[in-house]
């Protein structure tokens, strides 16, 4: 099971690509979906690899993503 889980605030994202690039375990990729401003937000492609380190959250200049340590498993809210 993944040690962490990523949350993405879709409407804040400007698709800069920092989170995708700097995630140490390549959890993310830019999606082909759009937010209402026309940007491609990231999406989780390797959920099991997420360690909850929150580097994505630290890099994101738009406060649009963050990771939390999963509480005993990565189930959705």
């Amino acid at each position, binding site marked *: 099971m993944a040690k962490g889980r990523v*949350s993405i*605030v879709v409407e804040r994202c400007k698709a800069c*690509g920092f989170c995708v690039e700097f995630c140490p375990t390549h959890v993310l990729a830019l999606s082909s*979906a759009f937010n209402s401003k026309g940007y491609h937000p990231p999406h989780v492609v390797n959920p099991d690899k997420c360690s909850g380190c929150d580097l994505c959250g*630290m890099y994101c200049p738009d*406060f649009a993503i963050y990771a939390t340590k999963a509480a005993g498993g990565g189930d959705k809210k």
Partner: protein
Amino acid sequence: MTDCLNTDLLKNEIPDPGVNPVEQFLRSDRIPHIWCPGCGIGTTVNSFARALIESKIDLGSLALVSGIGCTGRVAGYVKLDSFHTTHGRAIPFATGLKLANPKLNVVVYSGDGDLSAIGGNHLIHAARRNIDLKVICVNNLIYAMTGGQTAPTTPDHSTTSTNPYGVFEPSFNLPHLVEAAGAVYVARWTTFHVRQLSRSISEAFKKKGFSFIEVISPCPTLYQRRNKLGDGLDAMKYYKEKSKVRNGAPTSEVGMTMTGEIIVGKFVDRERPDYLTLMKSQYTESLGERFVEQPEMVCS
């Protein structure tokens, strides 16, 4: 086929402030902010937020002062007592704030043009006086807000809107300038160095005196684009590749060029009595019992 976004946050949901560390410090009603895609200013705010948490600063006694420019807009996005002042004058405003209420922790958060061009005089005098301020200088090597003009920090041969044929002026080496003027804490990081930046800010909070932390940050829209250096992500990769951490390096050696090495690290960490300490000591010596310490300036 378009990807379906597998996020558990609804389209307009604001994250729980308790979850994303930075959220509690944001005026969430004003996000998304105006900074461009790939601009690094927001990244510096993440480091700042984590420093605030880590250093357990009393937020009620924290004030943030900014000047004019892209970085100057930080004041408007943080949920603190924040002052968006005039171009170049964040430091003297912050000085007044600190001297009137020495209990305040005063942070100056502004850009390279604001702090070193129009604000240059105030920068060196505050460093000289060793006013207890924490200055975070986001250096994107350009005047971004106004459309990409040359700043005193713009590297040689860069193209800007006011040097369309290439900058030929030597640029400032800010750590060197500020150290010479008297700062007690001088560091430089880039927006790639998110953890180190956060640590430096925490260290600055523990210091009494003039602290200066320069953060090299991408300006994708003007600096990167006009100089064919790619976008914000390309800048971040360049910082990752070309930065060299040299803690304690002589600041005279940390000047920057357009595509060369970027020396980062904590360069100066020394002790000098701060302005208020010097003031109190001088008055005590000269006036003895006649010296009356400034009372709490509560005029309500």
